[in-house]
């Protein structure tokens, strides 16, 4: 599967993993902007803008955009994270060009005032929805607690107040500043006609003005508070813990993901056997997340309120045991088998490869075949895991819990 890349004169990068036998073509614009690039006055603008991008351009109404995306039978959507905003469509190969033209056009949205006001209502509804849905914003609240003043702690949705106060002018200014070619990669996977992709990009995106893009990376001073938020109407108690982990540029990220699999995979991990298999918790898992200048391991626990304290102690015990005694060769081998198979299964669809190729490019300006990614995991040794445990002890966490409980104590450290 050849990898191809090209950069337009305005700085827009085009990368593709081309697979001639694939049934579909996946395309996406990966924009290097997200909640961390916002100031408090415009909190939530990245995500709101993601919605507004579908609201039309000088030549297309919102209805045109939606209709045309459906006319080419696309599976399309968009999402916003702390660091990225991604617009994507998976289509049959014969629709590569119309899909590319449409996505390119909407990346220069009109941001009309009346659409802005209507969509503001949808965003406010979305905020209400997440407030009402387990785990009731616990992830964002714990991110905010851990990252404190660092911009990775910013909320993706923003607040009802920040969204209500947001103006079209502020959104336009943010757009001009962040959606510049230097911040955008056009990514493709599957059956891709690369020459044509570049030619159409030149025509559709070549005139986008090149303005310099930067992202401040202030020093992170993580905080480790223990917070209890009471929500009487909840049935279960929800706990989120954040500990430090390797960043996107740290070669320890493979070892750390294996460690997260051993300690907190959904099935077969230490947390699974201790807490889920025994029915003490509905869910207990740990996942690794990597950003430009920081990384985290996030643990999630949900259980009956009366068992929350005991489960927190058990979590603490699992974390302490990992730090004190490490993990075993057998656990390492099992985690490798799981990850290897998962990678192969996930890579079969171009729609999934798009995110692997695009994510790798926008975070590290690198490309890896599935085999190379696999090699990154297979090369990990027990020593690597133990080094990661030492550098990023899972015992040091910011903890936030939401549920019916009014009080919950930080777990005791082992004597």
């Amino acid at each position, binding site marked *: 599967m050849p990898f191809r890349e090209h950069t337009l004169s305005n700085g827009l990068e085009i990368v593709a993993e081309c697979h001639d*036998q*694939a*049934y*579909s073509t996946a395309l996406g614009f990966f924009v290097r902007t997200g909640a961390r690039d916002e100031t408090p006055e415009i909190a939530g603008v990245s995500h709101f803008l993601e919605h507004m991008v*579908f609201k039309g351009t000088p030549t297309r109404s919102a*209805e045109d*955009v*939606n*209709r045309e*995306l*459906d*006319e*080419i*039978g*696309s*599976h*399309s959507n968009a999402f916003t994270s702390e660091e990225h905003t991604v617009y994507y469509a*998976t289509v*049959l190969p014969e629709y590569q060009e119309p899909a590319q033209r449409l996505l390119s056009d909407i990346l220069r949205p009109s941001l009309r005032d009346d659409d802005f006001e*209507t*969509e503001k*209502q*949808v965003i*406010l*509804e*979305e905020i*209400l*929805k997440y*407030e*009402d*849905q*387990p785990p009731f914003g616990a992830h964002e609240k714990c991110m905010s607690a851990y990252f404190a003043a660092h911009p990775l702690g910013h909320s993706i949705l923003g607040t009802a107040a920040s969204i209500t106060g947001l103006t079209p002018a502020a959104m336009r200014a943010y757009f001009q500043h962040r959606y510049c070619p230097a911040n955008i990669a056009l990514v493709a996977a599957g059956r891709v006609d690369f020459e044509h992709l570049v030619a159409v990009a030149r025509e559709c995106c070549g005139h986008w003005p090149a303005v310099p893009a930067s992202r401040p990376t202030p020093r992170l001073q993580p905080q480790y508070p223990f917070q209890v938020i009471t929500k*009487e*109407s909840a*049935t*279960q108690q929800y706990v989120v813990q954040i500990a430090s982990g390797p960043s996107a540029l740290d070669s320890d990220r493979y070892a750390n993901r294996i460690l997260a699999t051993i300690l907190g995979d959904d*099935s*077969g991990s230490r947390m699974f*056997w201790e807490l*889920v*298999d*025994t*029915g003490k*918790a*509905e869910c207990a898992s740990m996942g690794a997340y990597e950003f430009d200048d920081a990384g985290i391991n996030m643990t999630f626990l*949900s*259980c*009956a309120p009366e068992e929350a304290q005991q489960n927190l102690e058990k979590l603490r015990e699992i974390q302490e045991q990992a730090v004190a005694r490490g993990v075993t060769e057998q656990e390492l081998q*099992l985690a490798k*088998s*799981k990850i*290897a*198979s*998962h990678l*192969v*299964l996930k890579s*079969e*669809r*171009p*729609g999934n490869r798009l995110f692997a190729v695009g994510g790798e490019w926008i975070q590290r300006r690198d490309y890896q075949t599935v085999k190379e990614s696999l090699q990154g995991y297979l090369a990990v040794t027990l020593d690597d895991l133990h080094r990661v445990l030492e550098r990023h002890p899972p015992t040091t966490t910011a903890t936030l819990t939401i549920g019916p409980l009014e009080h919950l104590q930080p777990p005791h450290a082992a004597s």
Partner: protein
Amino acid sequence: MSEPQRTHVYDNGLVLLAEPMPWLESAAWAIFLPAGCCCDPPSRLGLSSLTTEMVQRGCGPRDSRQFLEALERLGVEHNSSVTAAHSSFSGATVAENLCDALALYADLVRRPHLPAEQLEDARQVCLQEVRAAEDDVAHKVMQELRRRHYPDPWGRPSQGELAPLERVVLKDVQTHVATTYVPRGTILAVAGNFPWERLRDTVGQLFGDWPAAAPPEVQETSALNGYQHLTFDSSQTQIGVAFASVPYRHPDYFQARGAVGVLSDGMSSRLFTEVREKRGLCYSVYASCHSLRDRGSVQCYAGTSTQRAQETLNVLVDQLHQLAQGIQQAELDRLNARIKSNLIMQQESSGSRCLALAVDWYHLGRVRTLQELGQIIDQLSCESINAYLARNPTPTFTIVTLGAEQLEVPRAVS
């Protein structure tokens, strides 16, 4: 397009369905057992769910931990679920591990240990699920909608209820396995990269001597229908609306599916356009076809803030009425483009193909090829869908809302 499908019925009644996909590196399987929650005695609601937990706690020569480690060594991504009609176990892995993985599943359905000392843990897992479902209000409103719309046992929530789960004893689980984990009525569907003859022979060796027994008969009551409001302290109101439709096996199914597609498939669909895009009433709104073997329904959902809930329900119901007036050619063209692309992209996933095989067999007693499905879609026309809508005028709705305030129900609700 795809390779020919294969079917084999073993002497004990077990059905093997297979679709070779030699261009993939994976293989996926699904075992549908006639052990759905429709078989749960009313005093033991949740028994089938608890049983799926118990059979995974040791089987054949392995205890619980050894079983899971064996799956992990083979790189199996696995899942289990319970619907009204079935308990199912599905999985996928790299193709060369398929037969070894199926051997583990033969142990699971035929030789589970059902260890007494694990019953309490398994029960706790199920109780956690019931409590978690309470917090998921969007899920809850649709669960209550199905319970109200279908006669029992077809609308039951598969996870059961707290008190009946507390009553389950080991003997119940043993009886459930003995009567419903049986080859007659069981479908094993496999898709991916494998040679057919080897698969058929392996499955024959693993399951061929599974003693035949017939699954139990199901008794049903009558449906409640009408409107029900569940008071819940929240700034949002969850809305569920259902109406009767044709099941998957009905000759008109794809006419009904086409009409619902116009309503809800894609970003230019009517509900997304009218409820979200034009009015900004909510973030999430949809309608979907749901099919049991002998009856079907259309189930719609919208979640919105309390002060906009009445308008949302009105617009939703109005759109359902307007659908009866017919659809436009351009709407059908867009829908066809989406369906065609879905069908072709199914060939990229062994997991989605094997589930489609099993579902086809359950509803039709045979499997449709992707080509056959493509022909059915090509034959859909505005005239045929509009004729269907004319034959099935404005339906009677079952409505459930969950939130701070009860809503006023628009016309045509029983």
